[in-house]
């Protein structure tokens, strides 16, 4: 089985900052908007290099979404930046009418998603945003797993015509995905294309965001137990790569989904729909279970709410027994 190692760790939001800075240099139509969280979103470099293309909106997220929608009239490609909670739930109707229904080319970039925001607690730890955004017609939903993937995704969504929700997080995480370079577009991020991380025969683990690393750790533990796990990195939750999931499950016969999100409305339910329609399969869901989060360190929270490699190992054994 392929092993993933790392030499460096960084937060995914810094990958967003790096990707945005790169877009500042290469795409004159890209503009950035922020609702008083420049440092948290790592937007400093873009602002330093492109002061005229940055718009500080103040603490007014609804206005930010509207302004972003309006800027597309005139050919701009706006990237909005704030925490995931304030990027979605707070401004749902603004996104629904002014962005999604109006077919506007806005990139809603959301940091500090999920429990790993940590000590600030449940007011800021949104666990419902994937569900909210995937229900909007025409919205692309992406949740990246490490610095490199976030950087590559940020660059890729500028080329995609249409509204995108890009979800990433606060904590420092291992960098295990290859770095995008513009030489030959090497390691280019492909929206809607699942990445098979390991080959396996006993269980498919479909993971997104920070849970991809946990799934890889789980697959190594499972291997020690003689269980062969196939890990799929499903950065794009909508449109979902149905074919990749069906192909893997045809081989393994069972699936575990893993996400830093409520199991109601998340990636797991999207996978379940694909399987129910095409190939009904035993499935276990790793995610929060219809609950709010709370204060704590990211690691403590991931353990308490069962969002780590340990839980994925247990779920894998359970789902294999159900075959």
């Amino acid at each position, binding site marked *: 089985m392929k092993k993933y190692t790392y030499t460096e760790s960084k937060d995914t939001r810094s990958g967003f900052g790096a990707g945005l800075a790169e877009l500042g240099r290469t795409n004159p139509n890209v503009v950035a908007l922020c609702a008083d969280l420049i440092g948290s979103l790592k937007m400093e470099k873009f602002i330093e290099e492109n002061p005229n293309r940055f718009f500080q909106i103040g603490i007014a997220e*609804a206005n930010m979404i509207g302004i972003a929608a309006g800027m597309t009239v*005139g050919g701009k490609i706006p990237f909005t930046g704030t925490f995931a909670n304030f990027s979605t739930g707070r401004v749902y109707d603004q996104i629904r009418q002014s962005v999604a229904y109006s077919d506007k080319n806005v990139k809603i970039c959301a940091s500090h998603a999920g429990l790993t925001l940590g000590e600030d607690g449940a007011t800021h730890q949104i666990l419902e945003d994937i569900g909210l955004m995937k229900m909007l017609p025409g919205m692309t939903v992406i949740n990246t797993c490490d610095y490199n993937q976030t950087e590559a995704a940020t660059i890729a969504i500028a080329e995609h015509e249409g509204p995108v929700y890009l979800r990433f997080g606060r904590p420092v995480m291992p960098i295990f995905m290859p770095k995008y370079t513009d030489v030959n577009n090497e390691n280019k991020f492909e929206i809607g294309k699942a990445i098979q991380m390991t080959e396996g025969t006993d269980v498919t683990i479909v993971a997104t965001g920070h849970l991809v690393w946990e799934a890889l750790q789980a697959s190594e533990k499972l291997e020690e137990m003689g269980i062969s796990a196939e890990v799929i990195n499903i950065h794009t939750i909508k449109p979902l790569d149905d074919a990749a999931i069906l192909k893997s499950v045809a081989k393994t016969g069972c699936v575990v989904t893993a996400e830093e999100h409520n199991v109601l409305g998340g990636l797991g339910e999207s996978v379940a729909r694909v399987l129910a329609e095409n190939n009904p399969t035993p499935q276990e869901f790793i995610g929060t279970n219809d609950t709010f989060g709370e204060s704590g360190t990211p690691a403590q929270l991931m353990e308490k709410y069962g969002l780590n490699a340990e839980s994925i190992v247990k779920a894998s054994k359970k789902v294999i027994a159900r075959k």
Partner: protein
Amino acid sequence: MEIKELENIVFQTRRDILRMVHKVNSGHPGGSLGCTEFLVALYNEVMELKEGDFDMDGTNEDLFFLSNGHISPVFYSVLAHRGYFSKEELGTFRLLNSRLQGHPTTHEGLPGVRMASGSLGQGLSVALGAAQAKKLNGDNNLVYTLHGDGELQEGQNWEAIMYAAGKNVDNLIATIDFNGQQIDGPTSEVLPLGDLEAKFKAFGWDVLHIKEGNNMEAVVNGLNEAKARTGKGKPVCVLMHTIMGNGVDFMMHTHAWHGKAPNDEQLANGLAQNPETLGDY
């Protein structure tokens, strides 16, 4: 365009509004009739518009965003008479598979519409974005908006009002349809708006009134005055005093016709008050 010519379009637009809402027994005639002079003046006299095919970006022409999307009948009629689409299409208003949805949308590709509206309070933010994009593009044209007065109860407006002045968005003219009415009754009873002029001024806007918002000459002069005040560092607000239901006597001075269609007899009565000047659709 001569005032008389503009008034002729107003008569026809009122007829269109009445016939559109009557046919489908739904829609919003009251606010539409109150803003007819404004929209006719805007599209036929005040705004600089490019001829030829509609393009979404609207570079090097003035833009208009309708925030109070429920007055779609007047918007559609004015767009049709200005040539964005055929006036025969007005007959599809609110019907299944129509581009003329109950509230305006870009979703069906109707020329002339750049943003969906209907859920209130979002239009000013969108207009701000379009206005700032114009500045980035070195485009000196203006952005116009229309908002209901009751709509100002939505909080997002005040985020946008603060931003517009704070960021010197001075290529924007926001007009408030100041008719004092909303669905549940007079604004003074539902939720008093207070002194709107003082509020906009306190936020840093340049404010002017059009005292007779249903007098074509007053509307044209007021909008030209507003235009003259752009480019001076402040966004411009026009408080346009109108009469809901204007031009159809039994619909005037009441909120009763906010979202109600006339019956056959009422339609005939309303049409009799407004001569067919440009041909019914």
